[in-house]
């Protein structure tokens, strides 16, 4: 295809951020996401932006808070342990209703873990992560075209909802190269930011804060935030399906695990098994209605993820007892093969457990 580029996933996100108008980045090095700051360290100055290698993850996320409060499109990135360090700042961004884009190129955990790709931070990305009752809009790209497109979308949605947006990817997608088309960024026509701190000469002062001590004040703020998350649930759910129309068994997977699962579905089809793939593109909001509908229509589910059972809980909630749900997970930075997913699917086929909800490991 003409116009294709071949870049590392990390570099794809970095360039997409610049094209989407990101003009501030601060971060602290950690494998396997280092190509993002490396790229932006020379690229942002080219477009008049600011790149800062911070003294720590805490400093990095709080610099993003400052840049965002000043009205600049701002981003940080890290990998799992570094994202944990940034959780306090992410909670503050959510509380202050400041837009920001955070990319997590996941590696194995807990603790320092290892540097291989993983999906062990699903809970952290979708259920809050830091303290307080907040949500991030969370995207789970599964190829380089989506890394490009969704990074741009992330900046738009962060501004639209005045909320931090998480791009949840992993070491494999971040490190690998594959072709993509660098489509042009089209601004969505958002209203001007009438809340930024840009000097109050000639206008009343503005306040950006997360501290609400007055009677009932914080509850009102929380309820306001909840309304925003509800709007996201109504308007922002993204997913993709592959051969689910006539499927008995639907594999549910996101990100890199969805690529492996796509290969597995092709192998299963070649063996005459009616298998399909359901791929959530947004993890919050989660496509619960769509999965619920498939369950009501009699599909059984195999959840495939690079952890030992996180997204499966959201699938169970969506299915709500209407069908069978099982899990095949690998952990600690290990990667499953399509053949292993096929085996897990066929083990499920051989079990007569229709209409019973069960979760099992492997």
């Amino acid at each position, binding site marked *: 295809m003409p116009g294709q580029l071949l870049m590392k996933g990390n570099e794809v996100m970095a360039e997409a951020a610049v094209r989407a108008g990101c003009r501030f980045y601060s971060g602290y090095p950690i494998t396997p996401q280092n190509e993002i700051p490396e790229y932006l360290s020379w690229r942002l100055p080219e477009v008049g932006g600011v790149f800062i290698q911070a003294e720590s993850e805490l400093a990095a996320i709080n610099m993003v808070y400052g840049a965002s409060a000043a009205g600049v499109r701002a981003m940080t990135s890290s990998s799992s342990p570094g994202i944990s360090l940034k959780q306090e700042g992410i909670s503050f961004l959510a509380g202050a209703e400041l837009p920001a884009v955070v990319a997590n190129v996941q590696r194995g955990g807990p603790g320092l873990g290892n540097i291989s790709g993983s999906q062990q931070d699903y809970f952290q990305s979708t259920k809050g992560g830091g303290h307080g009752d907040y949500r991030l809009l969370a995207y789970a790209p599964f190829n380089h075209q989506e890394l490009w497109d969704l990074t741009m979308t992330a900046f738009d949605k962060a501004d639209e909802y005045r909320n931090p947006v998480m791009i949840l990817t992993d070491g*494999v997608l971040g490190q*690998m190269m*594959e072709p993509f088309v660098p489509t042009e960024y089209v601004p969505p026509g958002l209203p001007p930011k009438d809340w930024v701190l840009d000097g109050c000469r000639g206008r009343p002062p503005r306040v950006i804060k997360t501290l609400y001590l007055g009677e009932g004040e914080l509850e009102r703020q929380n309820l306001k935030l909840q309304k925003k998350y509800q709007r996201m649930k109504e308007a922002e759910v993204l997913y993709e399906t592959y051969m689910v129309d006539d499927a008995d068994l639907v594999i549910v997977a996101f990100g890199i695990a969805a690529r492996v699962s*796509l290969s597995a579905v092709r192998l299963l089809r070649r063996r005459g098994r009616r298998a399909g793939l359901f791929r959530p593109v947004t993890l919050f909001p989660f496509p619960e209605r769509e999965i619920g509908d498939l369950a009501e229509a009699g599909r059984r589910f195999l959840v495939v993820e690079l952890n030992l059972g996180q997204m499966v809980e959201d699938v169970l909630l969506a299915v709500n007892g209407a069908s069978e749900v099982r899990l095949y997970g690998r952990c600690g930075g290990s990667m499953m093969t399509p053949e292993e997913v096929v085996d897990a699917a066929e083990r499920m086929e051989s079990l007569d457990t229709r209409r019973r909800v069960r979760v099992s490991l492997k």
Partner: protein
Amino acid sequence: MEKGIIIAGSGGQGILLLGRLIAYTSMLEGRNVTWFPSYGAEMRGGTANCTVLISDEVIGSPVVQNPDILIVFNCLSLERFLPRLKREGTVFYDSSLVTPEKCGRPGMLDGCLHSVAVEASAEAARLGSIRFANMVMFGAFLRVTGLSGLSVSEEALRAILPDRHHDLIPGNLRAIERGYGQG
């Protein structure tokens, strides 16, 4: 058509660049490709490897357990990856550095249906720099596999190499042609 390729050797031998060249030329031929490096605590002189997948279909996992093609530049890599090569697979090795005898395991390629010895490092040295060895290997790889044509090599090199190294493109192309003759 789907071909999984593992390229392995020592850091500094141009392993990752050779992988990118194979991926890029296949992309120019209109195929789906992925390139996935070993990463982390890599250093010059340490081990380096990468995986390239070339397919007419949309590619799922970029990780390859059993490659169709193995390209190696040192004994350690041959010993490590040969057991994973598919039965009908092809191994290319830089015979200036790697032979079963040099590795101290005379019969190790006996069970191998397709093995291609390429005098990559020696040929590169004759061209003026041992650092052309990966390009000599690429030429031989093109000749044997036919996965892409010689003609797209220059376009690929222009895209992959940073501008400051574009003066090396003629030398690289000469090395590729020399390897093509050896394949």
